[in-house]
């Protein structure tokens, strides 16, 4: 663990990613305290540029404070990104572990199901799902989790396939350990590093996906997210650049920070890169 931290923290890029991500998380957590009135209150004239009195980031087409919107948007983006990834990792680990550990027809069956999800265009499936379930925060989270778990399942299955043949796993079987105990206490801890790496990257892409859905209007209308900010302001794109560019930058920086962290985790957790 100490070794891992030393590698992770000794490189500038993951460290920068971590710092940016920490600022965004802090902003998201503190938003209700800093801006108690919420993001939907109209505070002035529409389309005031950044730096106008009292408006750090200007105002949007309806005269709402962009800075407040960005802070509240971070809450939605992070919430969706993290919960949908947790969901996808949960499904992926379970199915991948079972497929990789047992092999045989069960593996064939589960992998065909996985492929079924992989060959359907993800975003189209997601749009159908969300539209079908009524656009809301939970339907977005469920939808994203349902279309992204296959990549986790693939990674986990591969790890389990190679680890189940290792002698310490055979030893566990000869000791009389039950399959569940072998999967969760023997193999899974050894398969964690790639899962963590994939997971950290998936948070970023889930945020992107959520933004795209909100841009198209397929999100909870009572919640402001970065994607819906861009979507709502696209008519003003040519006259007030900040209404679309600022939330776009917020998405870009967050995803970039997460990818930096993912890269750092990959370097630090990959045993081949050690020493």
């Amino acid at each position: 663990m100490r070794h891992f931290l030393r590698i992770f923290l000794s490189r500038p890029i993951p460290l920068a990613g971590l710092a940016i991500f920490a600022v965004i998380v802090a902003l998201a957590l503190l938003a209700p305290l800093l801006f108690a009135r919420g993001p939907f209150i109209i505070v002035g004239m529409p389309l005031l540029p950044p730096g106008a009195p009292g408006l750090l980031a200007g105002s949007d087409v309806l005269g709402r404070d962009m800075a407040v919107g960005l802070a509240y948007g971070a809450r939605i983006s992070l919430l969706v990104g993290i919960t949908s990834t947790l969901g996808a990792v949960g499904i992926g680990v379970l199915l991948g572990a079972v497929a990789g550990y047992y092999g045989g027809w069960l593996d064939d069956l589960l992998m065909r199901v996985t492929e079924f999800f992989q060959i359907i265009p993800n975003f189209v499936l997601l749009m159908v799902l969300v539209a079908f379930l009524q656009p809301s925060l939970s339907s977005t989270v469920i939808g994203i989790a349902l279309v992204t778990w296959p990549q986790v399942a693939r990674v986990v299955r591969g790890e389990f396939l190679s680890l189940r043949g290792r002698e310490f796993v055979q030893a566990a079987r000869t000791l009389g350990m039950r399959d569940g105990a072998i999967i969760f206490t023997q193999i899974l801890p050894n398969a964690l590093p790639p899962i963590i790496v994939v997971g950290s990257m998936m948070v970023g892409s889930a945020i992107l996906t959520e933004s795209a859905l909100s841009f198209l209007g397929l999100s909870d209308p009572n919640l402001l997210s970065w994607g819906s900010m861009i979507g709502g302001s696209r008519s003003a794109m040519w006259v007030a650049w900040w209404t679309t560019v600022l939330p776009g930058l917020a998405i870009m920086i967050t995803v970039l920070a997460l990818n930096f962290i993912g890269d750092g985790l990959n370097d630090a957790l990959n045993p081949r890169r050690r020493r």
Partner: protein
Amino acid sequence: MEPLIAIQDLVVALPPGADRAHAVDRVSLTINPNEILCILGESGSGKSLTAHAVMGLLPRGVSASSGHIRFGGTDLLALPPSGLRKLRGRDIAMIFQDPMAALNPVITIGRQITEQIRAHRTLPQKEALALAAGLLAEMGLKDPKALLKSFPHQLSGGQRQRVMIAMALSLSPKLLIADEPTTALDVTTQAQILKLIKRIQAEREMSVLLITHDFGVVADMADSVAVMRYGRVVESGATNDVLGNPSHDYTRALIAAVPRGESRLPPPAEGQPLVQVKGLTKRFSRGGFFSRAPAIVALDDISLSLSRGETLGVVGESGSGKSTLARCVIRLLDPDAGEVLLEEADIAHMRRSALRPLRRRIQMVFQDPFSSLNPRQTVGDILIAGPKAYGEDLKEARRRAADMLSLVGLSPQCLNRLPHEFSGGQRQRIGLARALMLKPEVLIADEPVSALDVTVQAKVLKLLDDVRRQMNLAMLFITHDMRVAAEICHRVMVMRHGRIVEQGPTKDVFAAPSSDYTKALLAAIPGRQAR
């Protein structure tokens, strides 16, 4: 005589944080023309790095910090990479331990050989191919024309190593460096390859630098020998002097640790068999869902019996089915036919739930000390995993784990450490302790010492024998090494292609083998004639 190559005070520094400062510490060696020099040492002795330094093939982060390697008037260490590249392959060639890893899997044998020739000589591909075919024939390979068109995976291990040697010899080098060239091969193949290297060396009057950990190989091959330990040459000289009259304690210890290949243990009195295997058969089907290739018969009608306090050795080369047998007896694999009786219970066909309480009576020690322990669990957790699986009291199990560590010769303080902090021999001890935690009656040892250095090997074998006696275990000992089998087994069973070729008391099988195959195996033991 002017030496062909002279290594003077070579120092190879290790990166900071390694377990010692120098991998190779002031090593001086000379190789004369038309001579085989063996560098003998255990793992970590610096023998491979010395050879790699000659080729300029030191791994990243490791470099020769001082010394000279003189070769025909030039100092190889002072040579720029381009100069070294001209020498490599043409004047100095190298073969490696694992020919499968050393050959490119997606390029034909013919192209791999001609590529090397044409890197140094301008020669049309056709002539280069003819040259390659000639070389393959010289290596004793049949049908060289067809071989040139095949890929590495289509050849056997022995054939691949012959191809490697052909490739190394393609430009008639003055020096051939062979880094453990037979370690990955079966004994009978090993004997053939060693014979080949010796023949080629004599015919071409070249020099060979042979890296090995095996005293038998030294006795068979070397004109002179250098023994290395901790990066230093502890003793060197003519082979007969060093082997016959070693002056250094370490050399003596090494020689003493080499199993002599003579049986020591008399067969025990006939007891009631604890394990009986009857007509065990196992097939592996090949091909996937759509294709059905003929199945490979890994075990063909195997029967054996094993009593308490007795060690039965199962000897065979790779692919003989010996590991499959071990895994069927402990039911890691499901056999297709036959019975495995533990007293009255048939383990082979029992339902999983019924089998679980019986599992603890049969335990196993595995081959690879690096993969047999979960890298993320402490030694303590590894040892109590068994008792935990049977719902035993964990406090009591922890206490017993400490005792068990002392029994296998480790300090009880090791309980909180992780496997990577231990050496290979120590890990095998931990693996044995794990198996013994369940107080088994049968112990299956699958090549438990094949990954270990000879001196460590001797200690682990002694430990296994002591434990067998103390706990009155029935032990099934799988090995490819006849010498090791002789050391520890009361009876041996020789397997080939999934069948039993011969079995009997170790003494009898070694003294008067009845089958040709056993005779060949015994004859292939390196250094046997030398004694």
